[in-house]
């Protein structure tokens, strides 16, 4: 993974001291709250319902065991012994104090981490495929480009006061695991058909929130060495022309929608044509310098199959299930990438205690070359595990409640913190996730249902990605009560789609029953081997809506 050089190190240290000075100026009144708020947000510090909240960047989801141990230390020293992994590959602490924030940033800098631009109307932490570098379906590792973008976007003099937040995601694989079409800019690595040179398909104007859009392609092929200059052109058009009269219409997706993708493309290309791109883009040696940090580790030459693994799977069905569900094909023979679920039944999705962090850091060193990944699905990944090591790994994970076999299944729920923590939320998310997971806890049943993405957001801002869940749940306030709206048919893959609302809102306690009804229709209608989302796309929404309607009427009759 990337390591800071002297310049990165000094930059992050100076950022810490800058924030320390800003906090001091806030406390002595020379900065008003309105002036200070954007500054603290750009350092990841929110004021939430109960306390401040600190969002720490995990750039493109790559983390080392050493960094994870430092997070555990911060959790114990300055927070309440746990952290929450988010849907943007960040981690949040829910209870820090403003007075401690500069010291926490200092501890992060000690391990080459920061909170820079994890909030605010600026270019946010860049995200990537969590299997980057190990996926078999990859053109190239997207992380060197992500690191380049991370540096380029940090404290950008021109693009730090944008109309609204700006999220960039990159994937280097054929299958989109980074939801690039739901980002302000999505970059999909492609090869030129004729020259087979590497480049990017540039997608702009995707996003969830109040007005969800699937992003649109504005460049089929951008040569990879032109990326930063092209990004500068996009950002300048957006900075100048994005709406600033209404925060709900300020994202680039609205600009693209209002003027049309053709007009947007013309503006970007006109600006790009004007630029002296050589003065903006990094020299090839710099690109190589960064890329070298992501060179594949020296994998051992192993047989593709492991007899030890096969034997252990035969003897232990629970282990075999975990391998089948949580394992992911690795490009190197004899290796596997393993997703470690942070979705234990009845647990808070994405939460991890400091003890779990330390234990997990040790396992990362022992089994995965000291590196782990954080996924936008709020799970962790050990990217480089030898197949023959899977059984002892599983046993160790089990000791700390981290061996849940549910990745991609109905209980692997994405949920934002919701109104249990978040001051923007309109309803709670976590208890709904817990209730659904508990309802579908039976492992046999979960496996029978198969792949199903269930995503929950506690407000229209959609941090829980409900729009792109196969089943989405949106918590709202209705007449002084929490109310949950259910959507169906969303898709976060390369076939990105926004789900449709299937009926009236429900109270929280009625939600698991409604999910049961939708699942029942699927089980009744599915063809051999057909996953949930495929059935929805084949038979359409009507049978699901009818079942939902029937359920809602039953609730009314029951209440009456």
């Amino acid at each position, binding site marked *: 993974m990337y390591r800071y050089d002297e310049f990165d190190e000094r930059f992050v240290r100076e950022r810490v001291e800058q924030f320390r000075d800003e906090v001091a100026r806030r406390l*002595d009144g020379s900065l008003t709250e309105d002036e200070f708020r954007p500054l603290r947000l750009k350092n990841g510090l929110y004021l939430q*319902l109960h306390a*401040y909240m600190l969002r720490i960047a995990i750039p493109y989801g790559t983390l080392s065991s050493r960094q994870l141990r430092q997070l555990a230390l911060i959790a114990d020293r300055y927070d309440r012994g746990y952290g929450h992994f988010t849907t943007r590959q960040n981690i949040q602490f829910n209870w820090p104090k403003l007075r401690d924030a500069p010291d926490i940033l200092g501890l992060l800098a000690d391990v080459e981490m920061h909170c820079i631009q994890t909030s605010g109307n600026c270019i946010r932490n860049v995200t990537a495929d969590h299997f980057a570098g190990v996926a078999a379906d990859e053109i190239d590792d997207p992380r060197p480009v992500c690191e380049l973008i991370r540096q380029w976007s940090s404290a950008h003099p021109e693009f730090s006061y944008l109309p609204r937040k700006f999220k960039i995601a990159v994937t280097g694989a054929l299958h989109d695991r980074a939801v690039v079409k739901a980002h302000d800019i999505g970059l999909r690595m492609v090869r030129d058909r004729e020259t087979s040179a590497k480049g990017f398909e540039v997608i702009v104007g995707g996003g969830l929130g109040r007005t969800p859009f699937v992003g649109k392609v504005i460049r089929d092929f951008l040569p990879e060495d032109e990326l930063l200059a092209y990004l500068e052109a996009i950002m300048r058009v957006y900075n100048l022309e994005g709406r600033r009269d209404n925060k709900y219409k300020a994202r680039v997706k609205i600009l693209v929608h209002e003027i049309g993708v053709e007009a947007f493309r013309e503006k970007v290309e006109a600006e790009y044509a004007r630029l002296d791109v050589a003065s903006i883009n990094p020299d090839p040696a710099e690109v190589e310098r960064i890329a070298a940090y992501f060179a594949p580790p020296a994998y051992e030459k192993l047989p593709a199959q492991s007899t030890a693994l096969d034997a252990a799977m035969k003897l232990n069905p629970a282990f075999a299930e975990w391998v089948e569900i949580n394992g992911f094909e690795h490009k190197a023979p004899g290796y596997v990438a393993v997703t470690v679920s942070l979705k234990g039944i009845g647990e808070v999705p994405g939460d991890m205690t400091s003890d779990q962090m330390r234990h997990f850091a040790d396992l990362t060193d022992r089994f995965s070359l000291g590196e782990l990944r954080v996924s936008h699905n709020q799970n962790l990944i050990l990217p480089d595990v030898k197949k023959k090591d899977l059984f002892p790994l599983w046993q160790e994970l089990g000791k700390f409640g981290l061996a849940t076999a549910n990745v991609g299944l109905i209980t692997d729920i994405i949920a934002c913190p919701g109104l249990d923590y978040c*001051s923007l939320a309109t309803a709670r998310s976590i*208890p709904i996730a817990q209730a659904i997971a508990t309802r579908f806890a039976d492992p046999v049943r979960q496996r029978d249902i198969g792949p199903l993405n269930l995503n929950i957001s506690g407000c229209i801002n959609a941090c829980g990605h409900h729009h792109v869940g196969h089943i989405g749940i949106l918590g709202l306030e209705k007449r002084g009560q929490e109310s949950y709206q259910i959507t169906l048919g969303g898709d976060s893959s390369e076939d990105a789609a926004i789900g449709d609302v299937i009926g009236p809102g429900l109270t929280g306690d009625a939600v698991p029953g409604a999910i049961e009804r939708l699942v029942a229709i699927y089980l009744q209608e599915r063809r051999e081997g057909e996953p949930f989302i495929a059935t929805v796309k084949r038979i359409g929404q009507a049978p699901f809506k009818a079942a939902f309607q029937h359920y809602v009427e039953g609730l009314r009759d029951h209440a009456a």
Partner: protein
Amino acid sequence: MSAAKRPPLPVILLANDLLDGEVVFRSDKGWSRDPGEALIAFDDEAAVALEQAGQRAYANNEVVEVALVDVSLTGDGKPVPNHFRERFKVNGPTVRLDLGKQAVYGRR
């Protein structure tokens, strides 16, 4: 704010402490961390006094997110916010009863 914009009586005043972020309540001794010590305004005059105390403390860089919140009284006369959002705010996360004010001052 004008009376029309104030929430219905009775009300309490809550805010977050600027330095540590914790939820605090206007009490007869200044700001208290204990929701049980919140001053309860039963008439406009008392509500205005609370409001002004909040504005002064905000201007003085002591607190942020200052808000009057309408409450009902429990059997023992303690205030409980009427809206679920503020009820969570004076209690803590409903999924972690060991955290927040509920862990220190009890659930309401």
